[in-house]
């Protein structure tokens, strides 16, 4: 700025200097007796052209280029302001193209490409079990996991790694009854922060000494974000936090850049692995069936991931042999001993988001690339139209002595201004869009935090693309115009009779490609929308509306395990007694929540090698009534099914079919395999119900066996109660809250609607449908603008021709048909090309669709018709304007 001020001051200095001189010259003359007026005239004569003198003087400093550039920029700005329609269209087009691309890329970058914010992330590798499917017991995470025993072995022998660490993300409760409040916790091994190379910004991080068996509660390291949120950035070291009702002291704070190891999920509080038994009801440290720790290691210089993987493979038999405990199901021991560990690069951290959103995001990036192409085409035709319209003006300027390069530079400065304005608006839009995207991905239970960076390289690339488009399509006509003989341009510059047809050729190509690309986008938008609709309308076999999920936790009440069952039933009865509650049931697996439980089963009396896989769910009575699952045969669970009575089960139709039970399933008995917590069990089938979907709405219904919760000897201190009511969710929620508080203030609770939960499980699908819908609409609008522009241009150009035709007797309808004919030709070519492209592109989307084929002809037809109607409407307006021309006036215009 100061440089510019200097320049401005220098300019006014010269003005003043010359003015002073004129003043003195006049005064001299007046003093010599010349009358004032005469003196003035004489001085003016002597001075000649003052602005020219100033120009030449300024040129002495070699700065005239700056002055000319600023003049041209000012001029360009004035011209743009004078044509607000064009300017807004161009800037909006650019902003949308640039903004959408930047936002999608930022998201893709944050989820897929960025490395972990730690020291030398490329040296990091994760360790996991090759054949995890065979593992028995509880698997705590979608991320690769091992048991604590395996981790302790690897901690002793981690050849190839300079350091190795274990972690698990978890939630710690922060309430003391009432509304559940959680913080994102992290179990970490003592070496975790050192291995990752994350230094504390205050206090200290854990050391190996902090993470020894029997450590108790040795303190917590908190994240920067949590520090700000909880302590407002004030003194935090030494302060106590209550996690799962246990106090713990803050010993250190990590830097703001460090979010943990799992991309998309930030941690609040980290505590050592050794404190797990002191913080939770059950110790996970000595079990060979609790798979809960994820491993990450830093490679030794000189070791490759491959070498480490080979070494891990070699030591695996020893590790698995020494970590086997009696709790492991006997029949699976052979599989356990045959397991192998391996290593994989982990520079970008691990991410559930990545697996879920990788394909949709790549597809969206492709789509936004298409949008950019359409944007460029649109911009190109806008610039072409504008510059072509200036040909006459440029001819005049040339004729009166303007320099050719000066004229070209003027066109260029307009392009520059447009590109810059578009890019700035695009950057602002990208900010908004990317925040919107994250907000979209955020759900109540699953807070997503992503580290967005405005990628300067990407932004520069997009700016360059828009600049090149503007300059290219602004410059080409400018060059041509500046090369035409002024005389010739003046002659044809008006509304010629035949001129301009050739030029539409290129604009026609632009329109055709716009239409083609728009069809692809519209088609994919419709595909994804329809797919989402299929998913939402898909019948899971039960009624999802009007069901509230109440998650209760009464751990705090410390009820002994043998009395928990009774307490649960009592609590459930209290809820059932609420007047607005139609039905309520408890389950350990909420359907379509993503949770699941599977075991193998076989018919009693059959060979136990004839095993089948089945899903399981432990439910209370009224479960089927609550979800409106029809009971086909037999009965529901009832009060007579107790821990003392013979074990009973209700199965679905697929289960009966799979095990070959046919129509008389009731009364049949099946075995469930041994699990870490229970031996083989014989169950008698007392009822058969209709099929329902289990884990995810995308998957077809499979075999499900329902067991009675009332027969479970190891009742938990948590409940997931499904409540059906005709009242609005909020009202029921209030009533349940009151009831639970009446029982005890130490119970914490959390509510979600079943439908809400299903909607959240379809996040990726919704993201795709919404964004592709947005882009599809955008593409259609851009295509409309493009076609409208070209047709208006044609009509303006053919005014004389139309006038003559009408003078010779052509009717309005003839004129409309004549003009629309041209639009239809472009449209048909564009649609045919677009249909071909769409079919080619659709196969890439097949995996992301539900309930329809990627080459769905009905959808393609719908997209084509939709686009055709919109495009015809856009070209009808100019055509109608053409037909309304007054023949006499249009001929006189020449």
């Amino acid at each position: 700025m100061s440089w510019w001020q200097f320049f401005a001051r220098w300019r006014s200095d010269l003005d003043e200097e010359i003015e002073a001189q004129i003043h003195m010259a006049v005064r001299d003359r007046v003093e010599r007796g010349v009358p004032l007026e005469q003196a003035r005239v004489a001085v003016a004569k002597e001075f000649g052209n003052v602005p020219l003198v100033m120009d030449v003087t300024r040129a002495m400093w070699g700065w005239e280029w700056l002055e000319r550039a600023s003049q041209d920029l000012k001029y360009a700005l004035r011209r743009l302001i004078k044509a607000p329609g064009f300017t807004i269209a161009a800037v909006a087009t650019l902003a949308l193209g640039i903004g959408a691309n930047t936002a999608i890329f930022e998201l893709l970058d944050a989820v897929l490409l960025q490395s972990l914010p730690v020291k030398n992330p490329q040296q990091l590798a994760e360790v996991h079990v090759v054949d995890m499917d065979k593992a028995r017991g509880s698997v705590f995470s979608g991320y690769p996991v091992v048991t604590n025993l395996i981790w302790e072995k690897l901690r002793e022998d981690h050849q190839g790694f300079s350091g190795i660490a274990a972690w698990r993300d978890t939630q710690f409760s922060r309430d003391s009854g009432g509304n559940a409040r959680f913080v994102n916790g992290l179990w970490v091994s003592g070496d975790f922060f050192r291995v990752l190379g994350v230094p504390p910004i205050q206090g200290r991080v854990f050391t190996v000494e902090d993470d020894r068996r029997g450590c108790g509660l040795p303190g917590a390291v908190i994240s920067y974000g949590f520090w700000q949120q909880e302590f407002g950035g004030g003194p935090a070291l030494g302060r106590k936090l209550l996690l799962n009702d246990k106090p713990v002291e803050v010993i250190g704070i990590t830097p703001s850049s460090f979010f943990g190891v799992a991309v998309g999920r930030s941690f609040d509080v980290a505590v050592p692995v050794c404190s797990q038994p002191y913080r939770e009801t059950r110790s996970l440290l000595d079990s060979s069936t609790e798979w809960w720790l994820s491993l990450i290691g830093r490679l030794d210089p000189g070791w490759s991931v491959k070498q480490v993987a080979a070494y891990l493979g070699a030591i695996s038999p020893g590790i698995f042999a020494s970590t086997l405990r009696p709790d492991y199901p006997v029949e699976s021991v052979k599989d356990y001993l045959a397991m192998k560990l391996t290593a994989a690069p982990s520079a970008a951290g691990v991410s559930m988001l990545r697996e879920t959103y990788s394909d949709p995001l790549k597809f969206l990036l492709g789509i936004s690339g298409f949008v950019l192409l359409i944007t460029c085409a649109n911009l190109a035709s806008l610039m072409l139209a504008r510059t072509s319209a200036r040909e006459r003006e440029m001819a005049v300027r040339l004729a009166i002595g303007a320099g050719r390069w000066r004229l070209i530079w003027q066109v260029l400065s307009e392009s520059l201004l447009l590109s810059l304005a578009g890019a700035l608006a695009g950057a602002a839009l990208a900010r908004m869009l990317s925040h919107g995207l994250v907000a979209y991905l955020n759900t109540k239970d699953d807070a997503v935090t992503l580290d967005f960076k405005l990628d300067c390289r990407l932004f520069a690339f997009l700016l360059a693309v828009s600049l090149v488009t503007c300059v290219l399509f602004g410059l080409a006509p400018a060059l041509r115009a500046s090369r035409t003989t002024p005389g010739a341009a003046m002659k044809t510059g008006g509304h010629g009779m035949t001129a301009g047809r050739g030029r539409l050729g290129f604009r026609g190509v632009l329109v055709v490609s716009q239409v083609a690309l728009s069809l692809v986008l519209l088609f994919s938008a419709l595909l994804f929308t329809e797919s989402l609709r299929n998913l939402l309308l898909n019948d899971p076999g039960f009624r999802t509306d009007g069901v509230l999920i109440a998650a209760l936790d009464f751990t705090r009440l410390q009820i002994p395990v043998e009395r928990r069952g009774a307490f649960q039933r009592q609590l459930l009865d209290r809820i059932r007694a609420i007047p607005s509650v139609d039905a309520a049931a408890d389950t350990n697996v909420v359907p379509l929540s993503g949770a699941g439980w599977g075991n193998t089963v076989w018919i009693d009396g059959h060979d136990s090698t004839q095993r089948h896989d089945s899903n399981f769910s432990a439910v209370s009575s009224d479960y089927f009534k609550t979800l409106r699952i029809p009971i086909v045969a037999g009965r529901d669970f009832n009060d007579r099914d107790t821990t003392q009575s013979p074990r009973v089960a209700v199965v679905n139709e697929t289960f009966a079919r799979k095990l070959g039970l046919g129509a008389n399933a009731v009364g049949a008995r099946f075995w469930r395999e041994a699990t870490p917590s229970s031996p083989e069990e014989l169950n008698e089938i007392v009822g058969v119900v209709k099929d329902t979907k289990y884990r995810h709405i995308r998957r077809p219904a499979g075999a499900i066996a329902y067991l009675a919760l009332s027969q479970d000897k190891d009742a938990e201190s948590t409940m997931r109660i499904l409540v059906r009511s005709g009242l609005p969710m909020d009202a029921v929620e209030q009533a349940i809250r009151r009831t639970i508080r009446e029982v005890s203030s130490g119970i914490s609770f959390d509510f979600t609607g079943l439908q809400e939960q299903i909607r959240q499980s379809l996040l990726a699908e919704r993201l795709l449908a919404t964004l592709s819908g947005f882009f599809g609409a955008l593409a259609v609008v851009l295509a409309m603008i493009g076609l409208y522009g070209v047709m208006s241009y044609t009509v303006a150009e053919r005014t004389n021709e139309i006038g003559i035709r009408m003078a010779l007797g052509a009717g309005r309808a003839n004129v409309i048909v004549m003009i629309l004919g041209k639009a239809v030709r472009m449209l048909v070519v564009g649609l045919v090309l677009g249909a071909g492209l769409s079919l080619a592109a659709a196969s890439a989307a097949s995996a992301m669709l539900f309930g329809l084929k990627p080459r769905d002809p009905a959808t393609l037809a719908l997209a084509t018709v939709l686009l055709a109607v919109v495009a015809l409407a856009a070209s009808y307006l100019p055509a109608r304007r053409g037909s309304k021309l007054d023949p006499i006036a249009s001929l006189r215009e020449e």
Partner: protein
Amino acid sequence: MPTSMKKPAEKASPYQNRIELLQGTLDMLILQTLQWGPQHGYGISQAIRTRSGDVLQVETGSLYPALHRLERQGWVHSEWKLTESNQRARYYRITATGKKQLASDHGRWQQMVEAIGAIMGIEPERSEP
């Protein structure tokens, strides 16, 4: 390029041509004038005019470009001051390098006058600047 094209006229100025003619000489005259003390543009042109007996009239269109050129070369330095009649004006002052330049210009001019004089057959006369 089509032959019929009319070459766009470059922005040509009659003043610029005259500067070309006087180049060097005008610079020398200005520097010489400033030898006698700081002066503003109008004063310089008046000085040259009176000293040359009204023969040399420096036009504004030549004077200011020349002054600014000299300033850019660092041969003169300028500052705003008030004239005796309380008029704000930019005063130019010769710098040390300007003095050096004047000496060398002067020498060259002398040589030139002698050389031209020899050709024209006129006895060189020591003329007071």
